[in-house]
């Protein structure tokens, strides 16, 4: 049993028909429930539900304050390598892109870690492209051990691994993993992932599950909104999160909502998710899964992120660079994977969170 069984169930499901039949009364009924069915969740993602956005926002706000309080957990990404063997048409690190490729040495990582830790940040997420030859397990284990000396929590966003490999990383100090399926629609997935190991849809789909099985405390999933039809994509993301919550009671599950932003490639996505739809997705997810973590990165701009604070988000990245390195010596940062539109420093983001009546949490876990 894997989440793929669920993906298959919806293979021939007509989302268009479902949405065409959705009524205001169904939206109101879904909103009045304590526990939503999958059909209720899809109802809240429908165009019809967009007319009920304020009611959705109010409920999402209430549930988030109830379960998470007025707190936002901060983390910072560190790209340690941008070498990549994949050819993902939308990505700045696409192997065909003629960009400067770099991989940080352990000494450089140590310098980056010192620079980041001095900002007060305690949760770090390290990222690589997918190049097993250049960033093999041994390298990642060294990175994890190095970072663990400076941070309370170390998370990974690296290529999908086997259970045993996740277990080794856990022993080296990693407690969480992020991995986006990017796209649940298998046809589109095939089209946009043109070379490399990432072409293996199943190996990627089951990776969060393998990480949970290995004992990582927290897994963060997501679909890159815009690659395929966004409402159905986000619906499957929500079901994936619920599947992980149900299957691994002791794992914290979080969801990101990355959407397209300009990057090095000239890729023009087939779909665009506007701010209103983004907020609809975010609030629908909170109402469907009241305890799920919701992560929003600096892909979103500062003003918009400030507005999202009361709507259901629980984790923000801050002070981010999305090129390799970039914290110790800014001029050394290489081409970013995607453009950042919230360029504020850590203290500035924390202050903005505070000004909105929320508390920025720098430290929420320490593997002891």
């Amino acid at each position: 049993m894997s989440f793929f069984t669920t993906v298959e169930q919806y293979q021939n499901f007509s989302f268009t028909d479902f949405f065409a039949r959705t009524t205001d009364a169904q939206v109101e009924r879904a909103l009045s429930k304590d526990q939503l069915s999958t059909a209720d969740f899809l109802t809240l993602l429908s165009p019809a539900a967009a007319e009920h956005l304020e009611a959705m926002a109010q409920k999402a706000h209430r549930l988030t304050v109830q379960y998470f309080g007025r707190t936002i957990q901060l983390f910072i990404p560190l790209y340690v390598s941008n070498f990549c063997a994949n050819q993902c048409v939308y990505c700045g690190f696409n192997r065909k892109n003629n960009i400067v490729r770099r991989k940080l040495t352990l000494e450089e990582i140590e310098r980056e870690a010192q620079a980041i830790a001095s900002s007060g940040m305690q949760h770090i997420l390290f990222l690589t492209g997918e190049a097993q030859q250049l960033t093999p397990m041994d390298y990642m284990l060294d990175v994890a051990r190095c970072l663990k000396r400076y941070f309370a929590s170390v998370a990974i966003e690296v290529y999908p691994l086997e259970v045993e490999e996740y277990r080794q990383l856990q022993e080296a100090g990693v407690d969480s993993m992020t991995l986006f399926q990017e796209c649940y629609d298998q046809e589109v997935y095939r089209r946009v992932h043109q070379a490399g190991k990432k072409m293996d849809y199943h190996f990627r789909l089951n990776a969060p599950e393998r990480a949970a099985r290995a004992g990582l405390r927290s897994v963060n999933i997501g679909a890159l909104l815009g690659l395929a039809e966004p409402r159905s994509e986000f619906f499957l993301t929500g079901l994936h999160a619920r599947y992980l919550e149900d299957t691994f009671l002791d794992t914290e599950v979080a969801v990101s909502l990355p959407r397209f932003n300009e990057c090095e490639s000239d890729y023009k996505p087939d779909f665009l998710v506007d701010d209103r739809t983004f907020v609809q997705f975010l609030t629908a997810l909170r109402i469907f899964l009241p305890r799920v973590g919701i992560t929003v990165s600096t892909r979103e701009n500062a003003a918009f992120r400030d507005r999202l604070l009361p709507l259901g988000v629980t984790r923000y990245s801050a002070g981010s660079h999305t090129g390799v390195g970039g914290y110790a010596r800014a001029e050394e940062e290489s081409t970013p994977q995607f453009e950042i539109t919230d360029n504020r420093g850590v203290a500035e983001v924390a202050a903005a969170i505070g000004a909105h009546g929320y508390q920025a949490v720098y430290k929420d876990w320490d593997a002891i």
Partner: protein
Amino acid sequence: MQEDALQLGDKYFTSRLFTGTGKFGSHKQIPAMLDASGSQMITMALRRIDSHTPTENILEYIPRNVVLLPNTSGARTAEEAARIARIAREAGCGDFIKIEIITDMKYLMPDNFETLRATEILAREGFVVLPYVLPDLPLARRLESAGAAAVMPLGAPIGTNRGLETKSLIALLIENCTVPVVVDAGIGRPSHAAAAMEMGADAVLVNTAIATAQDPAAMGRAFALAVQAGRMAYLAKMAEESAVAQASSPLTGFLH
């Protein structure tokens, strides 16, 4: 009248309202809440203590006369909880420890089995152990024998504000436990707290309902008054409730 104080470890508490530091929009709200509520013990997650960013150090917002109750939130095994407790003690947080072991991230239910194991370990090491559990009488008995200073059954799942959903099970603990019973989690309104105290609970621990209120200090005060009222009613020995009305013309009146 002798002051009605609750003893836990070597400490006496005249306020039977315990509070928590989680979920506040800012730590700065905590001193005013403690002042308004008169709470003399506050729980805080050791995992949140951040010695690197002084402005965010929660300990600076807790007055010295309030007892710190570090909790093991985040722990998933007895061993993890025990390590957290030892670190709390070494960090100068005292001997009190609330054991909170949650292996169910979906409903946030405490893991009674791991909690019992942690209680056994930590009571042996001289901690004042306050285990957070699902109300289960045989387990409570085992916690007592293991050396727990109190038992802390949940009224409803953490953060739900649903009140005393486990009322009849808590009543069994109150009736049969020799250690104090502190109702923890689920208390969403002052009336819930009053009801728990009327039943004979020795204290209540309230966090979400106070921390997430529009005015945490005023809500803290409201809870304090409700806890006092419930306690007074319990001590005054309320008349028993009756499920049916007492007939004014009894059926057996003719029997003299």
